[in-house]
């Protein structure tokens, strides 16, 4: 039963990944810069969280 549940959901996730594989927003320079900013921003925040975690140990 659990295996059925997991395999069903993995198949669903795979299907979602295929469905949204191609973004429908045109990747203009402005959009690319925004997405790049978000990536750096998230790396920065995750780095801070990691630093906090390390210093707490």
């Amino acid at each position, binding site marked *: 039963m659990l295996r059925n549940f997991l395999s069903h959901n993995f198949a*669903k996730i795979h299907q979602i990944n295929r469905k*949204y594989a191609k973004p429908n*927003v*045109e990747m203009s320079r402005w959009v690319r810069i925004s997405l790049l900013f978000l990536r750096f921003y998230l790396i920065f925040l995750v780095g801070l969280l990691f630093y*906090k975690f390390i210093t707490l140990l």
Partner: protein
Amino acid sequence: MFNLPNIYYKFRRLWKAISLFFILSGPGIVVMVADNDAGGITTYAATGAKYGYHLIWFLLLLIPVAYYVQEMTVRLGAVTKRGHAEAIFAGFGAFWGWFSLLDLALVNWLTLVTEFIGMTSALMIFGIPPYLTVIIVCILMGIMVLNGRYWTWEKIALVFCAVNLIYIPAAFMVKPSVSQIVGQGLIPNLPGGLTNNLFFILMANIGTTIAPWMLFFQQSAVVDKGMKEKDIPWGRLDTLVGSVMTVVVAVFIVILMGTVFQGVEIDDAAQASRLLMGKNQYVGTFMAIGLFDAGLLGAICISLASSWAFGEVFGWAHSLNHKIREAPWFYANYFFTLITAAAVVLIPKAPLVLITLFVQVIAVTLLPAALVFLILLLNNKKTMGEYTNSLWQNVVNISIVVVIVVLSTLYGISTLFPTLFK
């Protein structure tokens, strides 16, 4: 000269417009008033207690901030008929979609725990034990969604929004000085200069004005309500009324606390209620009722925001207009989020303070992304057509988003490193 038929005609038109507003209003008012959740009430109480009336002008500035951001979700929802989670998947692909969905689920769950902390601490003032509060809230929220109609859910939520106005009579009961409010509060000033403490309070107020769940909630609610392009002006009015209401409530909390406890440090709203009870029992009771209601409204919206988002992406039936048999996964997700968050509050020695602080940090990982996606989606001519952001809307919205991102990030970082700005 009185022209009776003309007056009657104008009256009928006005009445029709008001009736139509009451039919179409809802998502904007509910999301904005729910923004004054348990954490928000604590922030406003601390602001009023520490700085008196001096920061009322700053709160008033938050009306356009909240309005312009949330108005974009109305347009996006009404035009694309998609919730924010699905719009991010479709617009930016699976990577950003999964990031937003999973981060939203985590932030919402943590925020829901804080709402339960607020509700249980509010009712503990009346001697109601936490387990009983949790049971009552879960039953109440279950009844609200299981009636099988979005309309009924929304109208019940609006009743709870009306209860949120309880801070207005509470503020009048402590007899504040109108001349002092006008003199100190409406003229922009920074009490004691821009100190680190004041900067922290300003960041906290900005941080509570726009939360990630609000974007996801309002857009999904607009879709579930079935709003169309022609309803956008009413959606805007609904959002404007909601933004005014939320700030008015915040201002009255500041007035209440500023009148009774100017210069006092307040750690949480439940503590403020207990202190107020020592001064005036009725005012303290109103504060506690308001805190419970704020937590409940927050919980109602946050748990739905997650369920809608998962339903949109996984393709489950995800409308409040569906019965439980027609949308089992949607309701399973709703109750799972609700019950697990409620259970955390009941665990003895659970790290509730840590969870409360952690929410601020995790929220800033999602908020900038959700806001940037919102701006980019509103500029996508292919899907938005004539409802694409105009130049003026872009100037205003991008400026607001930049300020929110910078200040909420600093707020999140200051939560992580408390001595940084103090």
